[in-house]
């Protein structure tokens, strides 16, 4: 019966996105308090010795597969990838024979921490379902760092993830991008420098949640009117701010400061491209409407999430440089997902310029994004598309990083990037593959050969906890 609450959480709550703003650009100064990065990240990787992974099969995330190759990690960064690399004297050597190495996996759609386990009522913190527009809320202020799901996700190779508000609302709030490291506070997990996201939602969820309360919106046309009214307000807010700034700069006496508005701060950040827009949307026709709306107000949709009909408009999405973040095989759990097909991801990928991402929206799915990618790859091949693992791995690494605005820092094994690296016991495109080692910024954050006490305080000291084999 747990499935019921999970289903409702997933269906009613859906998705959202709001990474933490670490904006240091001066253009933010136009805003009253500026997006000056409050609630800053306190995450600092521990110093680590260099590591040389030797003789593995390496999928770089850039489309390359290197056999019998080495990966050298130093000072928390990828130093080099290639054959017969020289190990520094103090390097830890990881024997890679028979093993596979990939970039750390990235999930662009997670509610870990905001809908944590155990899914008790007191933990339901993912949807501020009291108003259809809550652009003022930040998902990070709901994140419970003791969610045991962070640990199990890391065991599945997840090194970064976007935590989103739910999809009950037209505009659900800001998302946060986290590094998958254990910390007592969420600030200790916050991905340094990652932009925040804005979570928006199409379709059934907002109109059901509010329509059932006899409130606006109760229809899809109501949904669209609801978003547009917000963008209009945000534009006026930005004009007022600019006008104030102009007068203040000119020393005009009637320069009157604009009252700060948390909701409009967020929306203005999205219109300026500082906050990346992630929209939960299933149907092809609705996604096309949202793309037109983005043109109307001059912003960019970073990714459509769930997007079970993305395959019907794969070329349109590619032309707009908008990614599709999708499941390998979910469908039918509500009317707007009835046309989901297993080839969705492969077809979005097949459009020239297409950007396909495998996402989870699930504390279970996030543990096996590699298998989800494998299923999507297999479905594509059955349909006659030529997809190799070295290409498909980008669906859970580089493309996800791109949609989150962190591709310059992570998502591939290119030299200079954060050493977010997974060592698999064999081909990760297999149901039998397990992670042996998970590095975040060069630090081993999971080692399958070691069993310790539970990481989550919640599981500590629980007589029923499963750590020890009876």
């Amino acid at each position, binding site marked *: 019966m747990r499935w019921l609450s999970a289903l409702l959480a997933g269906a009613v709550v859906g998705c959202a996105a709001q990474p933490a703003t670490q904006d240091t650009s001066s253009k933010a100064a136009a805003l009253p308090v500026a997006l000056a990065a409050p609630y800053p990240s306190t995450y600092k990787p521990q110093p680590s010795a260099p590591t040389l992974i030797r003789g593995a099969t390496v999928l770089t995330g850039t489309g390359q597969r290197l056999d019998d190759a080495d990966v050298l990690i130093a000072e928390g960064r990828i130093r080099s990838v290639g054959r017969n690399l020289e190990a520094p004297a103090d390097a830890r050597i990881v024997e890679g024979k028979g093993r596979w190495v990939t970039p750390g996996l990235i999930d662009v759609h997670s509610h870990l921490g905001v809908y944590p386990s155990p899914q008790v009522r007191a933990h339901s913190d993912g949807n501020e379902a009291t108003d259809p527009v809550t652009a003022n809320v930040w998902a990070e202020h709901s994140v419970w760092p003791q969610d045991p799901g962070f640990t199990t996700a890391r065991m599945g190779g997840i090194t970064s993830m976007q935590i989103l508000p739910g999809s009950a609302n037209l505009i659900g709030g800001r998302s946060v991008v986290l590094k998958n490291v254990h910390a007592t506070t969420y600030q200790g997990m916050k991905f340094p420098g990652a932009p925040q996201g804005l979570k928006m939602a199409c379709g059934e969820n907002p109109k059901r949640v509010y329509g059932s309360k006899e409130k606006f919106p109760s229809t899809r046309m109501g949904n669209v009117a609801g978003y547009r009214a917000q963008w209009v307000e945000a534009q006026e807010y930005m004009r007022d701010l600019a006008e104030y700034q102009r007068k203040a700069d000119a020393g005009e006496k009637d320069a009157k400061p604009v009252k700060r508005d948390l909701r409009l701060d967020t929306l203005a950040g999205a219109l300026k491209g500082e906050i990346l827009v992630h929209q939960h949307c299933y149907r092809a026709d609705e996604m096309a409407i949202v793309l037109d709306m983005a043109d109307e107000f001059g912003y960019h949709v970073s990714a459509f999430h769930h997007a079970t009909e993305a395959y019907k408009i794969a070329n349109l999405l590619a032309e707009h440089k908008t990614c599709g973040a999708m499941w390998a095989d*979910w469908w039918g*759990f509500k009317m707007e997902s009835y046309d989901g097909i297993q080839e969705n991801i492969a077809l979005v990928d097949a459009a020239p310029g297409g950007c396909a991402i495998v996402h989870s929206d699930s504390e279970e799915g996030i543990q096996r994004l590699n298998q989800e990618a494998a299923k999507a790859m297999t479905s594509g091949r059955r349909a006659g598309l030529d997809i190799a693992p070295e290409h498909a791995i980008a669906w859970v690494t580089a493309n996800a990083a791109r949609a989150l605005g962190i591709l310059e820092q992570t998502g591939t094994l290119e030299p200079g990037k954060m050493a977010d690296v997974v060592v698999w016991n064999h081909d990760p495109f297999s149901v039998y593959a397990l992670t042996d080692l998970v590095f975040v910024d060069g630090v081993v954050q999971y080692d399958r050969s070691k069993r310790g006490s539970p990481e989550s305080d919640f599981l500590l000291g629980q007589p029923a906890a499963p750590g020890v084999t009876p």
Partner: protein
Amino acid sequence: MIRLLTALAAFLLGGPTLAETVLIRNATVHTMADTGTLEGADILVRDGTIEAIGRALAAPAQARIIDAQERPVTPGFFGGLTHLGLEEIGLEPTAEDAALKLGTMRPEFDVALAFNPDSVAIGVSRVEGVTFAVIVPTAEAGSSKAPGGTIIAGQGSVVALNGGAATDSRALFLDFGADANELSGGSRAAQYMLLKQAFLEARTPKAVLPDDQRLLTPAGRQTLLDFIGGAGPFVFDVDRAADIRQVLAFARREKLRIALSGGAEAWRVASELAAARVPVILDGLEDLPLGLDSIGATLENAARLERAGVDVAFTMDSPEPHNVRKLRQTAGVAVAHGLPWDAALAGLTRVPAEIFGVADRFGTIERGHRANLVVWSGDPLEVTSFATHVFVDGVQQADRSRQTELRDRYLERVRAGTAR
């Protein structure tokens, strides 16, 4: 010729083809029966039945030959405990028939009567190698405005995924533990209290008189009595170790044949389950304390149970019918976490067929049995493998579904650059 064309048309449009004589050559046959795994074996299917299994069988004159090229053949897979054919689309009341919300205990509620063999989800699951499943009722809590269900969700039954009606095989489904607290007045202790009274009413109808204090209707009493008498298993959905012990004690007292579903903490009670010969139908992916009854959830649940001698079958935790095809992946994950491969395959074939009393038709490949089997492109538990030939009762099923139709329509558009 007309017959051939009709058959061809039926095949292309997704309907089943006519029973024909088929010889599957050179397969790795996982019989899941005493004969074990046979390499390089042939299977002869005639009149819907497996007529012979062995090496280099002679091909009858009319036989269609399928060369398996040493690839695996297994019994058709189990789809778990599911709302397949009961719930076409989630969140739509007119498309859901699995939950009775009369607020009264009605073991006579039988979801087989609602089964829709034309559900799109059936074809979608069948092309992935699923040939049988158990359709189940669900108990949902009521509210101040509307009644809900009770701890006895009702009866479910085995269905074949071939467009036919539900079979006569029945099981009774009960919800226990924290998830059912709202169905039992707020305490799991009352679940035993209510069930005990229901049993008393069924066994001694004259002993319980005042109508307003009865739990069961006459039909309900008869249904319960039938199950007490062995009409089918009682399936208890329960997770916490302490609750499992209580259920085992209840079953022992009442001399019931039971199975557990869920069973997140079943590994902690493994030796008792083995001693009582109670099988567990579990979700191989459960490893988080999703509820407080599942603190002990682990991916090693299946492996630990099997090691203790408990029969394990697989289901998804959610009966939501659209992810039935994912069940074999969960079995593969259990293998990665210590379950022997053969036991995982048994959990998708023989074990569920035995639990639900259909082992003469499903779950094994044996001479004289109906031919319910699948040819796979590779390891059937592997996420990169898929079903290439699916037989239900000796009839090869079409490799089309509504989803392949959608795929083919839009694949062309993506290729042409016109998907917009």
